[in-house]
């Protein structure tokens, strides 16, 4: 009962929205212009937490889901903001690309909690290979 009241109560607490219509010139997809299918995969699976623009799902109206997501976005953007890609030095880019490959290979990204509720964000084996191959090739192309 207490839980239920708490659950209803927190529905009235609002969260900050991570939404911006501007795509900066430094954006990863804009600068690197990857093939359409890879672009789509990154947008669906990563951009919600790693850019300035989150496509909020309808259930983000439900607390505490909204809080959890807000937390992930804050942390995720601090680690890696795809919108700011081209402002990184070549060293930082290579380092991030390596981490991206590692995270996808180890099934650490997208976050498990997000995959549970956001099933279209799950990368299949072949999609993983596709993204990893692309990121590796991009890394090798940097001097």
């Amino acid at each position, binding site marked *: 009962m207490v839980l239920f009241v*708490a659950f209803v109560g927190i529905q009235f607490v609002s969260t900050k929205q991570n939404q911006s219509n501007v795509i900066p010139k430094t954006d990863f997809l804009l600068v690197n212009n990857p093939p359409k299918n890879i672009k789509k995969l990154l947008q669906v699976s990563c951009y919600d937490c790693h850019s300035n623009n989150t496509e909020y799902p309808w259930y983000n109206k439900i607390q505490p889901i909204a809080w959890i997501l807000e937390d992930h976005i804050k942390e995720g953007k601090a680690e890696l903001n795809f919108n700011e890609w081209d402002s990184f030095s070549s*060293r930082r880019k290579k380092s991030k690309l390596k981490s991206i490959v590692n995270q996808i290979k*180890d099934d650490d990204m997208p976050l498990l909690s997000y995959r549970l509720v956001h099933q279209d964000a799950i990368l299949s084996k072949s999609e993983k290979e596709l993204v990893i191959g692309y990121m590796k090739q991009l890394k090798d192309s940097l001097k």
Partner: protein
Amino acid sequence: MKHLRTVTILLAVAFVGLTVISCKDSKKEDSNDAMHSNLSTNEAEMNHDETMDSNTMNASNDMMDSSTQNSSAKQVVLDYMALKDALVETNKDEAAQAGKKLESTLNSFNVSSYTSEQQKELKDIIADAKEHAEHIGKSEMDHQREHFKILSKDIMDMVAITGTETTLYQQFCPMYDKGSAWLSMEKEVNNPYYGSKMLHCGTVQKEIN
């Protein structure tokens, strides 16, 4: 049907989420406590502070004689070696500890004794290395080793600029992640990527003086 499933999962997640949030808070306090006690008891930290002080005082000396290694750079190499040794021993907690130490040394790295071009390069290296050190400070072993590989590249590039007073050995094991290098102070190969599983995998690639 798919919707129904999503709704059920969501409701479950929501209630579990509430519980998790309360757990998470108390966990945070725990780790804060741990950090505090570490700060007050860890002698290494204090020594490190001394190093930093003498470093600022010596800055002008460093500028005179560019062949002496800057003391921040020296400390970075020492912290890196402590981290490497912890990974060789497959000791996650010690590696995390060493990662945090390295992060704080990098944070107070004094680059003033270098040319402006070197400073630019060093700042870039430091920013990157700091991120990896930070992750090593809070990750599982596998993840620590992944970050250590990228960190090693940063430290090698740093040493190329700062030089080193002690001889360093660049070692390489072709097995881990399609080939990975690291630095060591001993010629003998002890592999930080596998620990006891493949302790001596690797060769000396380069001697750095």
